């Protein structure tokens, strides 16, 4: 006889854990089943090389929801930060590197006027992010059947735009919000390196280049967590965030089991009654919340036959193209990056020296080919957080663009070849890098799909584009966490507001469940 649960959460990604914590806090009996051996999904710290544990995927917190951190008292459950204002350095081919902080302070040879223009631009964008930020904390407005809360939210948005920003800024907002980042930065800036930086920040984790539509929105989205654009680095790697959330959930009574692959959500008479794991254990509950992406949820966990056909069609057409790889290099010593101190290496480093570099790097992805001059975001986290490695260091990099559906497939040879491209790209700035590499690990979008489960290796669980946002996320008429099957909810990045280590989707889903929402 298994314990009786009110709610079972399939998937212990950070969103599933947040959802569990809020539900448990409200007195619900909650069980989380995670297929991997550690909870956290793409937000985990893992021993990638013997004696060396680092953030496996997500590495930097840009959007982390401070309200959730407070509600769940994450600091009491062990969450600490190595750095709460992690700076970004940009490596330029000509050696004129820059280091930039969240508020636009620039270190490097940039003209004073240009720095000013840069600061004005990011302040302007930051203000827009803050205007929109509250939308992440509420369910998307139901435009078909708005209730009082929806009407208030719509009013609030209107109010914030018109009176919060004022007429002039609102007009500016409306002009740029649908633009691409490339056009905006070319209006405002001269310096290629600063343009490169904003370009990278707009396209990380997407199937988009800086000239793709909607890349201002993706940029604004990255700043919405309440941290005013700050980048945080958790002590102990990203897994520390998930661990703290899990501990908070457990303290409130939630049960969390790992190594439990949910095979099938059980349905009786058109409603959810529980689920079965791959080892055959059945857990009964009237509510199942999926932390997997919407396609996996509908097609693999539940089965499309339990939904109506137009809904299934909409889910099937969600675009989920992943283009990012993760590369970990085990180093026996710190290689010399010419012109860059070790403080910078412990922070965030970006390789891309112009907006065109980023766009060119995206171009091949449109034709299912990888970039031979990829965009790279990396760090050597073991520098600042020595507990991560018993000895030596790890360089962890996010690499773009390397498409999920690579022409010819991600064979071992293909992986090796792409890994060499990445290492060569890094070596251009650190000629001795190859000598310090002991081991390497490349996770392609296919590997990410296999390890974490996100289809297409898309880290947002569905591309973050205008047509897949807000009330269209994951699909129209099912954007409020309750899916059109009684008792089934979605709480992961595929739901509003989307991906990134933020926790908002999990919190909003918990609220929807507690409200008794139905789709």
């Amino acid at each position, binding site marked *: 006889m298994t314990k009786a649960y009110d709610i079972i959460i399939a998937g212990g990604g950070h969103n599933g854990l947040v959802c569990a914590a809020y539900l448990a806090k409200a007195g619900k009996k909650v069980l989380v089943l995670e297929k991997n051996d550690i909870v956290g999904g793409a937000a985990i710290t893992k021993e990638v090389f013997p004696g060396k544990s680092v953030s496996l995927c997500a590495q930097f917190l840009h959007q982390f929801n401070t309200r959730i951190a407070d509600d769940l008292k994450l600091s009491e459950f062990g969450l600490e930060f190595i750095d709460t204002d992690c700076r970004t350095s940009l490596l330029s081919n000509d050696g004129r590197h820059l280091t930039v902080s969240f508020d636009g302070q620039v270190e490097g040879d940039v003209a004073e006027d240009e720095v000013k223009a840069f600061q004005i631009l990011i302040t302007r964008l930051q203000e827009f992010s803050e205007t929109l930020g509250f939308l992440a904390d509420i369910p998307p407005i139901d435009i078909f059947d708005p209730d009082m809360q929806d009407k208030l939210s719509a009013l609030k948005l209107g109010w914030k735009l018109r009176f919060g920003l004022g007429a002039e800024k609102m007009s500016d907002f409306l002009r740029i919000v649908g633009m691409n980042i490339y056009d905006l930065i070319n209006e405002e800036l001269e310096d290629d390196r600063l343009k490169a930086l904003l370009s990278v920040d707009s396209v990380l984790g997407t199937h988009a280049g800086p000239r793709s539509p909607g890349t201002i929105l993706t940029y604004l989205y990255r700043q919405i967590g309440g941290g005013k654009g700050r980048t945080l680095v958790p002590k102990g790697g990203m897994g520390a965030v998930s661990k703290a959330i899990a501990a908070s959930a457990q303290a409130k009574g939630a049960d969390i089991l790992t190594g439990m692959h949910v095979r099938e959500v059980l349905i009786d*008479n*058109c409603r959810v009654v529980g689920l079965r794991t791959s080892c055959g254990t059945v857990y009964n509950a009237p509510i199942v919340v999926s932390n997997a992406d919407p396609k996996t949820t509908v*097609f693999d966990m539940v*089965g*499309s*036959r*339990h*939904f*109506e*056909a*137009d*809904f*299934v*069609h909409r889910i*099937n057409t969600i675009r989920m193209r992943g283009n990012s790889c993760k590369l970990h290099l085990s180093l026996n010593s710190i290689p010399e990056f010419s012109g860059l101190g070790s403080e910078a290496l412990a922070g965030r480093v970006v390789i891309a020296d112009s907006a065109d570099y980023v766009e060119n790097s995206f171009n091949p992805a449109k034709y299912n080919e990888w970039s031979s001059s990829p965009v790279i975001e990396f760090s050597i986290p073991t520098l600042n957080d020595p507990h991560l490695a018993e000895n030596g260091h790890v360089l962890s990099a996010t690499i773009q663009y390397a498409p999920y559906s690579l022409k010819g497939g991600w064979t071992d040879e293909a992986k090796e070849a792409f890994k060499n491209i990445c290492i060569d790209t890094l070596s251009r700035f650190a000629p001795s890098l190859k000598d310090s590499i002991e081991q390497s690990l490349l996770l392609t979008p296919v590997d990410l799909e296999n390890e974490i489960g996100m289809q297409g290796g898309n880290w947002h669980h569905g591309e973050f584009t205008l047509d897949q946002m807000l009330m269209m996320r994951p699909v129209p008429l099912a954007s409020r966490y309750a899916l*059109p*099957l009684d008792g089934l909810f979605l709480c992961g990045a595929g739901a509003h507001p989307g991906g990134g280590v933020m926790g908002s989707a999990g919190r909003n889903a918990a609220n929807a469940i507690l409200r008794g929402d139905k789709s």
Partner: protein
Amino acid sequence: MSSQGLAKEHYEMGLKKTPFYSRQKELDIMNEWHRWSGYTVPNVLNDVTFEYFAIRNSASVFDITPMAKYRIKGPDALDFMNRLLTRDMTKLRVGRVGYSVWCDDEGMVIDDGTVFRTSENEYLLCAQERQLETLKRNALGFDISFDDVSDDIAALSFQGPLTCTILKKVGFEGIDQLKMFDLKEFAFAGTTVMISRTGYTGDLGYELWINPENAGDLWDALFEAGKNYNVKAIGGDALEIARIEAGLLMAGKDFSPATSTVRPGHAKSPYELGLDWLVKLDKGVVFNGRRALIQERNKGPRYRFVRLDVEGNKTACSAYIFDRQGGKTIGHVSSAAWAPTAKKNVALGFVDMPYGEVGSTVWVEIYYQKELRWNRRWAKAVVMDGPFYNPERKTLTPPEAV
């Protein structure tokens, strides 16, 4: 693009001809044809009245080859059909035919048609309109295959009180044992013909399904066996009178299929089409439109389907329906005809709820032409309970004592 030496693409071929075309053309004195799913088919061949009376008094042959036909097969065929259709498909045994509608997620009817369960894991779906996109959408996640066999199966609708007798004479032994909505394969001319006791006339009748190569032989056999029984080839006009008389709906005429309707309120749910009996909300599995239809059942539908007995003899084609003479518009007539056998001026239409209860009176304003000049007249109409024409032989087995 067609390149030399290759067959033309279908869209370059102009109108298609059914395997019965030449035989119909031989009998044709009217030269009135129309296009149906890419084929040319007759409105009338000789005389609408004679053709209509063949349906009701002897035997009529109508070419239904252009019907959209899909073969659905595979281990999940039953589950697939059960999710697609509003009826409980577990109840449809092999060798039976079911009439059903299918809806979109909003519970609006896409089309109606007949489903033939030809074997355990195989169905034939027949509809007025093409359904490929709907089937493709529905197939996601099911282990089935579906093929458009519209052009691979020729079909005749053989309707009227003498049809069973004539089929027996052709040599289809045991045909009189076929119950309404049964289907069976018979040997014929070295091939097989599938015969179902189905139709669109509200009368005794059969539909015959055969490969196109042997189709002409089947036609000839029917006319040979029926030559002393007044068997008649008919066009669509005569059939139209019969189906309105029988109170049957037609997609594209009585309702706009949901897939080609954009204006809000113009598509209709099964409840609004008076097809409540086709919707099994409690069949225990999800089907398209289920959630919306549950809501609709609780809230009540917007419209009511009505069969009207209209005063006078002027047909109420396209008329508005009013609550009283000169009063408020409450609906519209979608099909109307003088019903010769029922001897009634009948109309099918829709009224806003809560109007149109059985037995209630509504008004129609009828426009009609007399020697090219338009006239109009107000007429009272009574809402009927059920079809205007429903002979006993339609459901009797064996159907006749001949």
